[in-house]
């Protein structure tokens, strides 16, 4: 037993520790069963769920870059019905928090998915994905306009049946404090940041974008310093005073990276791309974070949050 108290209170939930796996990078968690015991994590976040199943974008959907990768999956998912029928029963057997990531083309769709799911057992909360750069209608357009963010948040919130609603912010804005504030005004219980940065890789021989979707979202270690900055901005400008916790993500691969996000202002952290390089990455991060606290003499992990000098 470690002497470090890893428990985190987050948007009304009591978590074992601050480490999650990120939406779109851990499927519906059963895919990771062979490699990772999700019960060792604070929680996990489902792939975005839409009302109807989505095939998503054509291939190629991913391409690697220097210290990162682009993806344009296009919210491929099995849809609400199959999620409830096939996946929820498996999910309920896990003993850790799970946020369902909500996506849609119109506000009504978000509301419908949330209200259908809020009555279901085994779901801890919702993450509002208004920031996916890979879907043409909806998606990123919601995510850059504070008025829209406030509107969608306030309309989805009542559909959550009292469960916490976390709003996932896009980094691709001039002033992230404004979008963060809008989410808080709309009633967000937590903020998660960041989603991916819009980017493009061109095959110089064919002179064509490598991704079928032409552009994709940049994730991975390359984006970490930008994500840390944005978390610290939102924490200082908005979240701290509003008492709204932040889930930080973007390029986290080990305990020190996670500590950096927490010091910047995050209460929890999320592991995305790192899982692709190592399916048990999130558990390794959690182990590393505990070791870091031990070696620094930190008794409660939650003390890290916002402790930036």
């Amino acid at each position: 037993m470690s002497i470090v108290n890893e428990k985190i209170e987050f948007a009304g939930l009591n978590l074992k520790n601050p480490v999650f796996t990120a939406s779109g990078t851990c499927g519906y968690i059963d895919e990771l069963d062979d490699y990772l015991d999700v019960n060792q994590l604070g929680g996990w976040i489902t792939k975005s769920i839409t009302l109807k199943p989505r095939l998503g974008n054509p291939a190629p959907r991913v391409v690697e870059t220097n210290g990162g990768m682009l993806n344009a999956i296009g919210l491929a998912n099995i849809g609400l019905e199959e999620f409830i029928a096939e996946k929820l029963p498996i999910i309920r057997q896990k003993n850790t928090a799970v946020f369902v990531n909500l996506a849609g083309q119109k506000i009504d769709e978000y509301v419908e998915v949330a209200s259908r799911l809020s009555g279901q057992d085994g779901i801890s909360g919702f993450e509002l994905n208004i920031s996916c750069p890979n879907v043409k209608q909806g998606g990123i357009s919601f995510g850059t306009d504070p008025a829209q963010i406030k509107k969608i948040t306030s309309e989805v919130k009542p559909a959550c049946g009292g469960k916490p609603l976390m709003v996932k912010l896009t980094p691709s804005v001039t002033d992230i404090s404004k979008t963060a504030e809008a989410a808080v005004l709309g009633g967000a219980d937590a903020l998660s940041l960041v989603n991916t940065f819009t980017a493009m890789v061109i095959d110089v021989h064919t002179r064509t974008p490598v991704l079928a979707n032409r552009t994709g979202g940049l994730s991975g270690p390359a984006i970490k310093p930008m994500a840390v900055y944005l978390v610290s901005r939102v924490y200082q400008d908005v979240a701290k005073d509003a008492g709204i916790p932040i889930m930080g993500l973007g390029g986290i691969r080990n305990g020190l990276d996670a500590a950096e996000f927490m010091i910047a202002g995050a209460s929890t952290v999320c592991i995305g791309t790192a899982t692709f390089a190592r399916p048990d990455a999130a558990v390794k991060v959690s182990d590393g974070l505990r070791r870091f606290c031990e070696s620094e003499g930190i008794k409660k992990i939650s003390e890290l949050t916002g402790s930036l000098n």
Partner: protein
Amino acid sequence: MTNKNNRSGVFEASVAGSEHFGEKICRLKFVLSGEGADAFKLASPGEFAQFQVEGLALPSNLPEGLEDRAFRQPILRRPFSFLDIYPYGEDMIVEIMCDIIGTGTARLSGLRAGDKVSILGPLGRGFAKPEKGKKVIGIAGGIGIPPVEHFLRQLCRDNPKQECFAFAGARSRADMPIASVQQGKNPENQEYSFCKHFAAATDDGSFGDKGLVTEVFESWFAGAGLSPADCEIAACGPEPMLRAIAQTAHKLGIRAQVSLEKMMACGIGVCQSCIVPVKSQLGREQNKLCCKDGPVFDSREVFAE
């Protein structure tokens, strides 16, 4: 396609050796011990593994065309099918044949005996065993050759009476990932000695016939006096080639398995990057995952008839 075994994991492997054939191709041998060895004992031909390339040295003496292309910092693993897997005392040896095309393959090619590499695997579904008594015809192109060679070799190892035929194609001799070809020897007396027939084709005629390996196969089959019902095809290679093989197979009525290659990030079914569009039995469009449902598929599933 064989069932995915459940013992896949992340294992540290030791490099047992590497052999370079020109600037483009190398063969790498890895040793797995303990749990890694246990997992790979259950691996079968056509399955693959994800090899760590981050943190490996970028060789300083890359050929000119590759220098700029390989100068990048990778974070993802790289998928490779197996050339062979066999026990070595308590340990298991995993061999791959690597086509050096970018930063990851260049880094792998620079490995030396004793280096450590993390391997995630075995992954996916490999080639299904043929029905009893059926002859197996392997047809492969370029870097698709190793898994097919592995499959045929393993079948003959398991059953010395198994009849196999092999057809290999590549752009040129220098691109053909067969050790004996690179060494100027005859594959029929070397790694393909277990095959009843081996033939090759290259685009430029520098090895085997000049032309397409599918044509070599077709004209051979026309004269071989084999009944399609007694045969199965196992194929791997570029998609246009696999499509052509599928069409021929469907026409002749031979069952064919094809191994596909897609860009993969995770290799384990979580990222949804490696989709293979298929039609469901009800005609509904659907995406399968190359890493989980494949890489080996029934030809009728992925290439409309």
